[in-house]
């Protein structure tokens, strides 16, 4: 049996972390979920922790913003190929332009009803089951 995949959730709101867990669970996603609550902790985890198969990235975070973290991810050899799902309540156009330039794999705008939030689950599931285009590179 394949090991459970790792998912890193970068999200400062504990109530949203709970909803994310509910959404993943209801979609039958089997994953080891790591959670960090601010930008600094996120950067440390990405440098030192076990690399996840998927990052769920909130934009409005303490210390470093989501776009700063995404830039860091794309600029670092270790993390530049990570699959990133932006999960945010905002639809700010200026952010969106910057994020598009950096590159992300999917975008989920947090709805204000429970049923709507559960739709995050199938998206995560889809991203995790997406076939890899190439073999993961070993670290140099």
């Amino acid at each position, binding site marked *: 049996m394949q090991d459970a995949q790792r998912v890193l959730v970068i999200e400062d709101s504990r109530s949203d972390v709970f909803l994310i867990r509910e959404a993943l669970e209801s979609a039958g996603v089997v994953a080891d979920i790591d959670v960090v609550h601010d930008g600094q902790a996120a950067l440390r985890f990405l440098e030192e922790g076990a690399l996840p198969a998927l990052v769920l990235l909130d934009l409005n975070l303490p210390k470093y913003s989501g776009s700063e973290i995404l830039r860091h991810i794309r600029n670092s050899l270790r993390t530049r190929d990570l699959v990133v799902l932006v999960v945010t*309540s905002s639809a700010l156009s200026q952010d969106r332009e910057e994020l598009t330039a950096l590159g992300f794999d999917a975008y989920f705008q947090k709805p204000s*009803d429970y049923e709507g939030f559960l739709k995050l689950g199938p998206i995560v599931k889809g991203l995790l089951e997406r076939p890899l285009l190439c073999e993961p590179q070993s670290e140099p």
Partner: protein
Amino acid sequence: MSVAGTEGTLDHLLKNLGRSGTSDRFRLVCLLSLEGSVLKCSPATLERAGLAPSDVVGRPFWTTMWWDASPDAGEEVRHAVLRAAEGGFVRCDVPSRVEKNAPHTVLLDLTVARLRGEDGAFTCLLVEARDVSEGRLAEEAIARLTAESETQRRLYEAIVSSTPDFVYVFDRDHRFVFANDALLKMWGKTREEALGKNCLELGYEPWHAEMHDREIEETVSSRRAIRGEVPFNGTGGRRIYEYIFVPVVAASGEVELITGTTRDVTDRKTTEEELRRVNQDLEQFAYSASHDLKEPLRTVKIYSELLVARYRERLDGKALDFLDNVRTGADRMEALVRDLLAYTQTSRLEKPGEPADAMAALQAALANLEAAITESGGVVEAGALPYVTVHATQLQSLFQNLIGNALKYRRPEAAPVVSISARRQDSFWLFCVADNGIGIQPEFREQIFGLFKRLHTKDEYSGTGIGLAICKRIVERYHGRIWVGSEADEGCRFYFTLPG
């Protein structure tokens, strides 16, 4: 007393001198003794005066009728006569009465000279006087005019030199031919240093001098005033100036000179700039705040929903009521935040390029209002609508808010009827959205356009109090106006103007 041997000659002389010649200007000719008593006067002189020889002969000349018009005249004449008797040739201007029976006076140019007898000794004095009033009047008029224009000149100079504005004049070769004190002070130059020079020669930067050269030429060729605004580094530092060049057109129709006035508008500009920045900050704040408010709201909504969904059996009726209030409050706040965002975003759109079809905007609005129309059983009718130079989405938003209000504030007993029309008004289109609803009391017709202003409780009519504020903001962004008609009949008539 007689003047022996000269009598005939003198009579002849008096006769000839006494004539006025071709003009009828008064002339006075008399012979006096060396003491100043009148010996004879020319017949014409006496005739004109209406005097007989006996009225004057033997009297001191200065006491005769001719000098009784003013107290000084007699005295002046006495001095003149006495000085002449001592050997001087005397000439002076004296006012004189011409006729015995009239108060009319003239100014006489009076000369007194000694005459020699045949023995070579001085025997008598000859007085001759001519009326020079007209000449003097003309001279006085010229002097008065000169003084007046001098006064005017000093007045203008005082005005021009005391104003803080710069006042100056260019000739056709773009050279300064006049500059007031304020301008010289700003330049830090004397009049002598500055006049006769053009902008470049006065140290203006080339782009600046060239700009003024172009403007002067344009003023000359168009014969119209031209305005501009420019920063300049003078003795007072870098300031912003507004100026106007005005052509001075000669009688020939040619532009002779170009006058200019320049005003320091730095303070006004700074204030405007600050105001704009404060407004921008406020808008940014409102935008961010309304945006950030959405996040916690979402949590409140979802978790109250979860509470009901998962714990319904363990909650009593009261707890469920409370939770219902939580959700209603959150819904309401969500609407507020959404509308506030829409409000702040009315100024975020770029200037429109294409004219928008008002009919298309209306139809888009009606599509969004479909549920409200169906639910209220309302009818919306529209006449022909024009193209207007505004953003289509903002026009749609105007219609949607106004028609939405018309449907919402309907009378319970009547289905709402809303009619939309437009007519030309100068460079604008005047729109009218009329309904048959509950109407608005006159005293509230101004305040309804204020942000968060409401006339009803949420239980009577839902709403955030932002819709009409959005309408006002949109309309004013295009320099239009919006108001509620003051007709006393039922319902409401909203009018607004948009450029088209």
